[in-house]
């Protein structure tokens, strides 16, 4: 049984379709990334699965249960880290965790969870004394305290500085070692690439691509480019293969980079030429992402 199964999911707000017939599955133990720009509908999808919103059409199963009617029993099996969400500021870190632990049938020990998110030393401090990044970690600790089978992380690192993001990634990786399923939304490509086993790219309420970070959007099959600077005294027309000039470089596009590179270098070596700045380029995940989510017009 998949941890999450969604089929033909639809949701409108006041006549505007935020989610338009979405279908995907998340396998047990998988870290699944829902990637897309702001307004793509990621949070709407996640909040339907968390039970906060009702879907207009389609089916959804979370741990085999319809999230619209799963109620208390389902919420006991799921951990939720919401997007930017305040905590009771006047409770202590340990107190808050203890309070939430009591909501679940089989919670993890509070100390262990605080260690996991790197807040072990703050157990006695008030929530309001934590920095923004530390509050996000506490947020994550609250999502983990019930020892959930499935964890929703909605844009867990938005607003973090780069080092805090790296720390958060480490934490997500450690959740994965617990063998739990994670549904992660993000608008950072590198985050999805670093954390997710599989990525769905959403744009304007639809899935526009699905795959592993390596294969997403047919990236591997896409044409590679061989780029170098034309050596002095060599004319563009003298090259053995068709090429064009761009930004002061020569660029060859090819579906068979190994063969093309061999032909090019053999030609250069035979003439005693060095090709300055020679490199083989593939579209980055970012290029693929921007291409996929580009809004027409």
């Amino acid at each position: 049984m998949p941890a999450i199964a969604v089929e033909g999911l639809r949701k409108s707000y006041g006549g505007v379709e935020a989610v338009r017939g979405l279908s995907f599955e998340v396998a047990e133990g998988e870290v699944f990334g829902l990637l897309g720009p702001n307004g793509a509908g990621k949070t709407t999808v996640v909040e339907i699965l968390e039970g906060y919103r009702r879907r207009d059409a389609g089916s959804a199963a979370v741990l085999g249960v319809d999230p619209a009617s799963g109620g208390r029993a389902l919420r006991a099996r799921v951990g939720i880290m919401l997007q930017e969400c305040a905590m009771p500021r006047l409770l202590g870190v340990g107190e808050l965790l203890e309070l939430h632990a009591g909501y679940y049938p089989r919670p993890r020990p509070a100390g262990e969870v605080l260690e996991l998110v790197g807040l072990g030393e703050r157990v006695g401090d008030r929530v309001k004394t934590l920095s923004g990044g530390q509050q996000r970690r506490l947020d994550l600790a609250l999502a983990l305290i019930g020892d959930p089978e499935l964890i929703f992380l909605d844009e867990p690192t938005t607003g973090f500085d780069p080092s805090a993001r790296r720390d958060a990634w480490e934490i997500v990786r450690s959740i994965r070692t617990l063998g739990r399923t994670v549904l992660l939304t993000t608008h950072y490509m590198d985050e999805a690439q670093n954390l997710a086993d599989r990525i769905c790219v959403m744009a304007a309420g639809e899935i526009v691509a699905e795959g592993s970070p390596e294969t997403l959007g047919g990236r591997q099959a896409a044409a590679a480019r061989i780029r170098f600077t034309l050596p002095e005294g060599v004319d563009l027309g003298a090259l053995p293969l068709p090429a064009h000039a761009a930004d002061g470089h020569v660029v060859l596009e090819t579906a068979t980079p190994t063969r093309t590179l061999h032909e090019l270098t053999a030609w250069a070596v035979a003439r005693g030429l060095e090709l300055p700045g020679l490199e083989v380029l593939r579209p980055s995940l970012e290029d693929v992402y921007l291409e996929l989510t580009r809004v027409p017009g």
Partner: protein
Amino acid sequence: MSDVALVLRQVRFEQRSFWRNPASAFFAFAFPVMFLVIFGSLNRGARLESMGNIPYNAYYVPALITFGVIGACMTNISMTVSIRRDSGVLKRVRGTPLPAWAFMAGLIGSSAVVGAILAALITAAGMLFYGVSAPRHPATLLLVLLIGGGCFCALGLALAALIPNAEAAPAITNAVVLPLLFISGTFYPLDPNSTLSHIADWFPMRPFALAVFAAFDPRGIEPGLPWVDLRSMLLWGVVGLVVAVRRFRWEPRRS
């Protein structure tokens, strides 16, 4: 964990949050105590001719008890829920297995504790410093406080459900509560035949004030249980509960 234990735990944590927040503790206690000291002292020798010449404070201290309880219950719950809803605290709670009723019971229980402390404090101060005699009908007083407290907690939840956002919460809450307190004789006795008191009879504040006073009434009239007043508060409590259950929101209103 049993349901009772779950609610008691919520009450305990609500109490911690309450007492650690200087603003909420201040507003619940400062005004009733301040009013007692100022008006109780100013009117120390005064008597109310219209009420059989009883001392002013014999009327004022029971009325202040209702003021304190309404503040601790209705005002406090309405503000707390509005603020927590806008900051996202309620949304987070909704994502846990804690049932909605247990959350609300925790809030109501915690308000009841504060209301009970206030009622005891004002009664004791009235007896010690303002010559008020002990309630003649303590059992009736407890029953009235219980039903009144429940009614105003339910109305606090209902009001929170109708308040659009946290910024508007203090203004709307005070705009609803304060005028009703003024026309209900909370600060000065009203002529029971005046238009204002006829209007106030439709709301639960005046019945609460009359019922608490009846339990203290030094004239020694044996009133029995103040059924009419209790019925009014029970009705309003049910109305509040229905509105709260139907209209309660766990998330900020979408802009």
